[in-house]
């Protein structure tokens, strides 16, 4: 599924990284724990998280994750969005909960 389809499904706002919307996301990794993201992630999944600070973007950058989706209406500050832009990451935000997001993505064929 392309990032733009995911944004539409989840009614997510795009915060930066429009140029990446055509990219395909095969797998999804959902976690609020960056320790786990750093030690468990394989490939280049979409990161779904309720944590909202600059280290989410840094962590994504280190493990080659190119898109982060913030849940439950959380919006990163301007500095964090700037970092993401510099690192050529796509950031999205949705009002849906982590549970809803994972359910919808799973239903629509995304794997863990």
């Amino acid at each position, binding site marked *: 599924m392309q990032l733009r389809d995911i944004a539409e499904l989840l009614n997510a706002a795009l915060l930066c990284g429009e140029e990446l919307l055509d990219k395909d996301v095969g797998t999804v990794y959902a976690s*609020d*724990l*960056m*320790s*786990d993201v*750093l*030690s468990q992630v394989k490939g280049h999944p979409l990161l779904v998280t309720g*944590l909202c*600070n*600059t*280290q*989410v973007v*840094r*962590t994504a*950058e*280190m*493990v*080659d994750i190119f898109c982060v989706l913030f849940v439950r209406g959380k919006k990163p500050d301007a*500095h964090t969005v700037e970092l993401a832009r510099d*690192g050529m990451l796509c950031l999205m935000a949705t009002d849906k909960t982590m549970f809803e997001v994972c359910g919808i993505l799973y239903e629509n064929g995304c794997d863990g």
Partner: protein
Amino acid sequence: MDDAVLSLKYHVSPDDFKTAGEASSDVKNKLKKMGLSPEIVRRVAISMYEGEINMVIHAYGGEISVDIGMEAVTIVLKDKGPGIKDIDKAMEAGYSTASERVRSMGFGAGMGLPNMKKYSDEMKIDTTIGVGTTVTLIIRLC
């Protein structure tokens, strides 16, 4: 150690969660530009970032030097923090002394040091209680 093609030095600010990771990010970008394989770049980035975060959350920041040679990338993370009492214990997955504040920021699961070990070819910890800790990571290029 082989002759360094590029030697880099970074200062890591104490207790600054906003800028933590800047050094690792810079190294990652430089390695990418040098054309190293994505897998090597990823291993260097993850293991250095874990070390950089540890310096911020467990010590009072410090200095990082990175030597990029023909045969290996050598990362030395040096802090003047409290030191590590029991290295074997610290190396266990799940062992952490991180504060509630650090945990609320998404870290402190006790996965960092094991992860640094996993992604490096060699890892050495020199630590003295009350003096500081130096972690050396070597990632071979071939």
